């Protein structure tokens, strides 16, 4: 990403916000025309890209409601964990939204015409007195103000005994994964994604840091993997936190389908599907946290699940961090940049300035010390437009959309990143 410029600030006007407004997932539609967000209050908000390039609200609906499981005496949160768009087949748009327990399929359609001139009812919908009807007329369609309706088409409830972490859409059917033997549970599936091009390939990652690739033609249940991606950990460097830190929080196939991007607590790794024993690239997202793992464990921050994203040409990867920072790594040039998404910093049309976190003394005035990082401000959810250099960043209740100042609509073969001098 070159010079990110804030193009749409869809932040709440009030600095105070409720927990329900916190955005919990962000997803572009397959063409990038729409951007869907889900929040902790169970709402889905869909933004549409205007001809000028900005995104504005297109539709809002309540997807999930809080429920209560009477058997276990526990609440079921209405927080939207994930939204996935289905590939477009007709003018209506379909998306899946899921909370911990229930997946819903929504149909979002537009209506801009209305039929008028019914025979049995008048314009307000009241029944006509049939004695007054002397002739028959054919109703005609007249234009009306655009109405966007969202209606649930399917509800997939209680597919899982435990929480749904991740959904992925397949051309044939949607598959959910469940661990087999709950008694000996020491590993949990954290993310799953279907291959973008080969509908029979499924990748899923676990809390032990492994990623498995399954070929569903060979084994439909995916209990045996075709490939296992795992990097050996030096036993001398193991600590009590090694496993937790290696737990994979997100998996994304590259658009080409040749690479896998995995995110664990401290790093982002690019894997070549043809090489299982180690990643081809490893990016340190916030290695300065390595000495702070104990207190991050105490505060539960170590369990934060960061997402990651590819750009349209698979040349840049992006992921979030703490203190409202997010990072981008250019794979070819190996340059990286740290940027901040916050109200104070993001002004319209202003180019974001790079940030740097320092461990010891500050070398520059603008450096931020590790000890002053705010761990409550975390950027977990990020999304990259499927084709263009437009990114969506969710920071608590705020949604920031940045686009490249230099080339908002075009591709770059070798994008350069304005980065801070090497650390």
């Amino acid at each position, binding site marked *: 990403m070159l010079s990110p410029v804030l193009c749409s600030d869809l932040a709440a006007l009030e600095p105070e916000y409720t927990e329900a407004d916190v955005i919990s997932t962000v997803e572009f539609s397959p063409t990038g025309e729409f951007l869907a967000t889900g929040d902790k209050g169970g709402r889905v908000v869909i933004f549409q890209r205007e001809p000028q390039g900005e995104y504005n609200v297109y539709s809002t609906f309540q997807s999930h409601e809080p429920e209560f499981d009477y058997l276990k005496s526990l609440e079921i949160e209405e927080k939207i964990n994930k939204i996935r768009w289905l590939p477009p087949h007709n003018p209506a748009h379909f998306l899946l939204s899921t909370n911990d327990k229930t997946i819903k399929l929504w149909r979002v359609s537009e209506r801009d015409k209305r039929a008028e001139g019914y025979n049995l009812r008048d314009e307000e919908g009241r029944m006509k007195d049939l004695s007054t009807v002397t002739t028959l007329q054919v109703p005609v369609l007249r234009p009306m103000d655009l109405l966007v309706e969202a209606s649930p088409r399917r509800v997939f409830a209680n597919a899982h005994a435990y929480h749904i*972490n991740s959904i992925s859409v397949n051309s044939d059917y949607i598959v959910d994964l469940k661990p087999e033997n709950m008694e000996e549970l*020491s590993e949990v599936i954290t993310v799953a994604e279907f291959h973008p091009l080969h509908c029979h390939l499924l990748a899923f990652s676990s809390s032990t840091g492994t990623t498995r690739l399954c070929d569903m033609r060979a084994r439909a249940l995916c209990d045996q993997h075709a490939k296992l991606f795992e990097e050996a950990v030096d036993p001398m*460097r193991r*600590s*009590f936190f090694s*496993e937790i830190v290696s737990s994979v929080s997100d998996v994304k196939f590259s658009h080409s389908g040749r690479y896998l991007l995995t995110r664990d607590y401290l790093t982002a790794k690019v894997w070549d599907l043809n090489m299982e024993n180690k990643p081809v690239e490893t990016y340190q997202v916030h290695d300065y946290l390595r000495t*702070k793992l104990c207190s991050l464990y105490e*505060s539960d921050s170590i369990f934060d699940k960061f997402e990651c994203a590819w750009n349209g040409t698979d040349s840049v990867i992006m992921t979030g961090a703490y203190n409202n920072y997010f990072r981008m790594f250019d794979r070819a040039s190996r340059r990286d940049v740290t940027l901040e998404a916050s109200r104070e910093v993001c002004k319209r049309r202003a180019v974001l300035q790079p940030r740097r976190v320092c461990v010891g003394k500050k070398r520059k005035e603008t450096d931020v010390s590790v000890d*002053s990082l705010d761990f409550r401000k975390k950027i977990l959810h990020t999304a990259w437009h499927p084709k263009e250099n437009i990114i969506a960043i969710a920071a608590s209740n705020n949604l920031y959309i940045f686009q490249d100042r230099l080339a908002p609509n075009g591709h770059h073969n070798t994008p350069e990143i304005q980065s801070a001098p090497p650390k």
Partner: protein
Amino acid sequence: MFSKGTKRKFSDGGEDLSEDGLLGARVASSYSLQRQSLLDMSLIKLQLCHMLVEPNLCRSVLIANTVRQIQEEMTHDGSWHVVTEAFCGASHSPSERLVATEVLCRSRETDAEPKLFSVISYEGCHEEEVVADETLCSVSVSGTDSNVCLAGRMGRVWEKRELNGIERGEEALSGDDEEIDNEDEASTEAPKTIGQVFGTFEIKNGSTGPDSALEELFSDVDTSYYDLDTMLTGIQSTPKMGPYDLLDGLAPSHSSPSVVAAPTCRSDLNELDHIMEIIVGS
């Protein structure tokens, strides 16, 4: 400084320890204390997660795995009981392991000894302070996260019956580890009981009784390096916790710090049932 000290072998007899050996022993004990506090923290997390919403399974599994790891290491060390054994030069803990774990992620730059707090103060059984060093303390931690405030809740955690689920799991784990020598077997035994640990909790109302009973019981106990595990394994896995239970449970463990084996617990459990029947006055 660290590596030099830890690579030395511990000599026998506390009086003859060289200075490096002393440092090594001090490092060993601080490591053990930090490990102990991590274990305590993990156990509390498994408890506290039983709130309104069903706990995140991934988080629970990771915490349970951490607990299991610590348990296994402590079993190998033989430091299951009292940390002071490390001082006597019994040399269980391999120095390599200390270096490898970086004394629980402590920064290598700080040479200063970590502030040592007593892990459990039994006077009132109310406070627990996590052993921490400066680098850990300086990280700003979310104030809204309810899991952070351990000190205040600690006292109530000891009182509440929720602890029984942990005790059951703990005690079963330690019993298994004692009996089984083979490491592989231990790791396959453990998952089942780990399943008990976070699978069988029920949110119950705490009883108010044991607080004063605990104070009485622990008033003459040496609190300096008393181990959470010993206390948990000393207390039998009983469904209800009343003053009689504590008495029965603690007596054998106080005299001999060895881990109570599973069969003993079962017979004691029967005794307790018997006593309860009498008390209830059937």
